[in-house]
């Protein structure tokens, strides 16, 4: 029998053959007969009343078949759509635009070119209105009101933890540090932009939606709910999510373009394709972060005691954050991080501004990045204030291995961890003490070098049905496995890979459980007609939920297999022993039936009274979240002439529990680290005072290339999750979450002796040079 290559094997990715050969099938590869093309005319203003849309100007363009406006949609009660956060957002404005680049009208045409020409030709009359860009300004009395249908710009106040106890604890601390910090708006900037092909069959009353979505089943239900009044029902909706070129949370939301293409297909009776371009993607799709945090952290006798975070969250013109329904600020209350502290309180005030809506979990489990940034910056500051090296201070204040399962002050039960081991390993790998010595020498020579640590704890795998739902749908996920007579298998999941390698890792989990080699297992996701219901892939939840379901379904199959094996071997079930890939009779290893023998018998020679077939399904409701962690150390050199921060070394020790495919884990960490240093050094979507976006294309939105990316040095520790069937925790997002504060801490460390205590991100050369200049440390050569 071939080696089954289950857990711990760097199996080559099954999906790579088609990706490497250009045979992937992405949304824009889908072409249907008679298909029309949709383009969107967008607002040049951040806030304006639409006085007239001259539809005739677009209709005059050769090939333009229809112009859809908010007034058209209003007739079908489709001008607004609900958000996941119980707010509503416009599909198309009936009278007022609320942000620059907002959809104003859809142009449907017989070619992509004609659609673009129609969108460019469409004349729209606007009356500009006052704009509010800064959320702090938006909260002031008399501020321009963003939403006519709301009382004010204040969306919600959310808080968690013991406010009074935390204040009292801070008052009793001997050392307290306070710092404001802003995590600016950023964008996932995935290689593939968003798009869809909507195909309405008027005869069958059936809608097929090919969609760039990370959550096809949830989308099907949402579409059914918002179109029920038009007669569409869930059994007549098929959502197909083909290959996806990067999601990172940006393909969780429902964008107006999807609804417009669907409406256009219903109106024209033809398939309609909408593919957004790069600028639209950056300017109008959901943003991430944009948290303005005021943090306080206190210690007594060197022991971290109390944390307080007060936060103003800029949500744009609608609260369209992609969070589980009961969590308006996501899992921000993981903010006590890796530290054993007894008092904590966090609050978030959501605010409307004239910017695009969003608040997606950009490669992050619902605001964990914001939480980790805050705590890791504050711990560094507090260590210094205590006169202690940040590494030593962390090691003393970590939650200790024997404290797990650990109840955090903000109510989480951390499943497992060994934080000290990860940090010590990272320190060993980078040669921490030697770097400190080198830094002292360099500082004496006037050179700027810094070392920064981030010892993050993540919270992923949403989530247990008790607290986690989206619009009421519990956040389980699913696996359905069918073993064919010849011992090969097909497995389908409610999740949807966007590059994570599910086709390989899920196959390896099944291989581990059943002894069927990964290449004999076909893994499919993304078609709601065939896959079992699930909530999709984001927030590092696939392995903790659907991966667990793969294990549980495999074990159900194994138990049926035991009965069949007993029948074939004429032995008692209780006497059978499972060894990967086969059952044998206890004491007689030669009397064995392989899983392939059992599969064949399931269709040809199954026991009387037993149903034929060998398949199982599992909807896995995780008993808890999982808590991956790690310690990153970043070493930077700063050019005193230009302000350029160069990452010389970056060591990342990750603990994601049991590793299914180490190569894929490394790849996830490489990509995550790159997306982690990006906001620290390069990326930001910014707006001027009139609400004009100033980083809305890839000339200005600085995605790192290979040239800006340092060599990553990876290490691992393995602390299995005690509640996951195979002990895995999820790893897709750890690096994105953990990396930014390591870089900031390194830069602040390099500048500490000058009196610098904090750096906002992105730490562009200009920003760093300004700081150097203010402190008389800029060089002229």
């Amino acid at each position, binding site marked *: 029998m071939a080696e089954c290559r289950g857990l711990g094997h760097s199996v080559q990715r099954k999906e790579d053959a088609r990706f490497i050969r250009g045979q992937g099938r992405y949304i824009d590869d889908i072409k249907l007969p008679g298909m029309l093309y949709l383009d969107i005319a967008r607002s040049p203003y951040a806030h304006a009343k639409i006085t007239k849309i001259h539809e005739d100007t677009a209709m005059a363009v050769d090939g333009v078949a229809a112009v859809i406006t908010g007034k058209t949609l209003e007739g079908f009660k489709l001008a607004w759509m609900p958000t996941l956060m119980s707010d509503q957002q416009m599909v198309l404005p009936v009278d007022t635009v609320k942000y620059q680049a907002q959809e104003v009208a859809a142009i449907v045409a017989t070619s*992509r070119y004609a659609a673009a*020409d129609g969108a*460019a030709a469409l004349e729209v009359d606007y009356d500009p209105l006052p704009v509010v860009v800064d959320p702090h300004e938006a909260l002031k009395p008399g501020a321009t009101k963003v939403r006519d249908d709301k009382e004010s710009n204040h969306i919600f106040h959310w808080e968690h933890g013991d406010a009074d106890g935390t204040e009292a604890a801070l008052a009793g601390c001997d050392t307290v540090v306070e710092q404001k910090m802003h995590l600016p708006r950023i964008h996932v900037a995935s290689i593939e932009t968003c798009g869809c092909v909507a195909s309405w069959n008027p005869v069958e009353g059936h809608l097929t939606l090919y969609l760039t979505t990370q959550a096809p089943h949830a989308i099907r239900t949402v579409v059914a709910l918002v179109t029920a009044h038009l007669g569409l029902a869930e059994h007549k909706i098929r959502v197909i999510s083909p290959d996806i070129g990067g999601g990172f949370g940006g393909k969780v939301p429902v964008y107006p373009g999807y609804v417009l293409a669907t409406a256009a297909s219903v109106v024209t009776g033809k398939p309609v394709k909408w593919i957004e371009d790069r600028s639209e993607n950056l300017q109008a799709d959901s943003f991430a972060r944009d948290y303005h945090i005021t943090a306080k952290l206190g210690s007594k006798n060197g022991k971290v005691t109390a944390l307080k975070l007060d936060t103003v969250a800029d949500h744009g013109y609608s609260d369209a954050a992609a969070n589980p329904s009961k969590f308006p600020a996501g899992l921000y209350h993981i903010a006590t991080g890796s530290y054993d502290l007894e008092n904590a309180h966090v609050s978030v005030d959501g605010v409307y501004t004239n910017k695009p809506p969003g608040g997606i979990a950009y490669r992050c489990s619902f605001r964990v990045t914001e939480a980790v940034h805050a705590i890791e910056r504050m711990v560094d500051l507090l260590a210094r204030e205590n006169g202690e090296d940040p590494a030593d201070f962390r090691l003393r204040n970590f939650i200790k291995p024997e404290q797990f399962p650990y109840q955090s002050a903000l109510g989480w039960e951390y499943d497992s961890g060994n934080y000290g081991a990860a940090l010590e390993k990272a320190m060993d790998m980078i040669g921490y003490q030697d770097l400190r010595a080198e830094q002292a020498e360099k500082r004496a020579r006037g050179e700027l070098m810094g070392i920064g640590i981030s010892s993050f704890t993540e919270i992923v795998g949403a989530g247990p049905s008790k607290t986690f739902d989206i619009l009421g749908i519990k956040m389980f996920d699913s696996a359905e496995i069918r073993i064919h007579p010849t011992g090969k298998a097909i497995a389908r999941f409610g999740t949807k890979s966007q590059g994570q390698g599910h086709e390989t890792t899920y196959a390896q989990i099944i291989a581990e459980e059943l002894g069927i080699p990964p290449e004999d297992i076909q893994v499919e996701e993304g078609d709601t007609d065939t896959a079992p219901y699930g909530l999709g892939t984001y927030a590092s939840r696939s392995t903790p939920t659907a991966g667990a379901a793969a294990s549980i379904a495999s074990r159900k199959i194994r138990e049926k297999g035991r009965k069949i094996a007993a029948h074939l071997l004429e032995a008692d079930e209780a006497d059978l022993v499972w060894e990967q890939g086969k059952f044998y009779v206890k004491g007689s290893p030669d009397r064995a039936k392989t899983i392939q023998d059992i599969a064949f018998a399931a269709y040809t020679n199954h026991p009387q009274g037993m149903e034929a077939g060998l398949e199982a399904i599992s909807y896995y409701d995780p008993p808890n979240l999982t808590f991956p962690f790690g310690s990153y150390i970043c070493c930077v050199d700063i050019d005193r002439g230009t302000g350029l921060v160069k990452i010389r070394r970056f060591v990342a020790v990750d603990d994601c529990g049991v590793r299914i495919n180490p190569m894929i884990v490394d790849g996830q960490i490489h990509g995550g680290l790159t997306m982690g240093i990006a906001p620290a050094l*390069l990326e930001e979507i910014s707006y001027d005072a009139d609400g004009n976006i100033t980083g809305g294309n890839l000339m200005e939105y600085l995605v790192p290339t290979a040239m800006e990316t340092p060599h990553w040095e990876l290490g691992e520790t393995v602390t299995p999750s005690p509640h996951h069937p195979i002990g895995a925790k999820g790893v897709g997002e750890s690096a994105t979450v953990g990396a930014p504060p390591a870089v900031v801490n390194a830069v602040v460390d390099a500048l500490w002796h000058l009196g610098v205590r904090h750096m906002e991100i992105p730490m562009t050369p*200009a920003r760093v040079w*300004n700081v150097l200049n203010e402190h008389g440390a800029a060089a*002229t*050569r």
Partner: protein
Amino acid sequence: MIPPSFDYHAPDNLEEASRLLLANPEAKLLAGGHSLIPMMRFRLAEPSALVDLRKIPGLSGIREEGGSLCIGAMTRESELEKSELVQSRYPLLADTTRVIADPVVRNLATIGGNVAHADPGNDHPAAMLAYRASFLACGPSGERTFAASDFFTGPFSTCLEAGEILTGIRIPASGPGSGGAYQKFERKVGDYAVAAVAVHLQLDGGRVAGAGVALTNVGLTAIQAGAAEAALVGSDGGDAALDAAAEAAAAAADPADDHRGSADYKRAVVRVLTHRAASSALARAREAS
């Protein structure tokens, strides 16, 4: 990101190209297209027609002739990168070519396009000013030659007249004791410069006999920093002279605040880069002595 429709012409001689330009005042010349096509995709440029130069023979190539390095306007950046002649004897040009955009762009982008597009953020104009290069053009007035210092009249504008086409570039041939360097500071690879400085030096007996210093993306055009050149000429290339040149270059810069930084910051970067470029140019010139 989809341009409006336009006509496309690919004539096989300069006269025809010139005639097409004159007949279509809204037409644009297409060389490598790596500035023009993105502008068309953003609909920032909507030419009625493109006149592609690729089929016209004799517009590309790199050779030394008559005391000059002669480069055809349609020579691709990647050809300059691969040219043994450029790499071994024209370090300022070699440096400049290497930092233009990225390798994929350089496979198609041309030196003539980079110069004639006259984007103050383009890298070749400053190098040409520092080299004291001259440009050859062909059009209704016949063949004309321009000094680089006369060529750039404003952002995206040159002294070429309607129907006139840049055909070649002449750089004074490199001799003993000459050396140069281009120092570009960019936010990420492929970006336009925050600021960049081109320096070309000619040494004579250990002293600087001639100097060209020019700046990229800190004004409406590439800027020749005459005072910086004067600070270097006659000096021994010591730190005092380099500091004086750097200070003069910073003063010559006329940058604006933008995403890449404040005007003060850009001036500071010019100062630093001038020092670094001059140091590197000196070392290379000494090596070539």
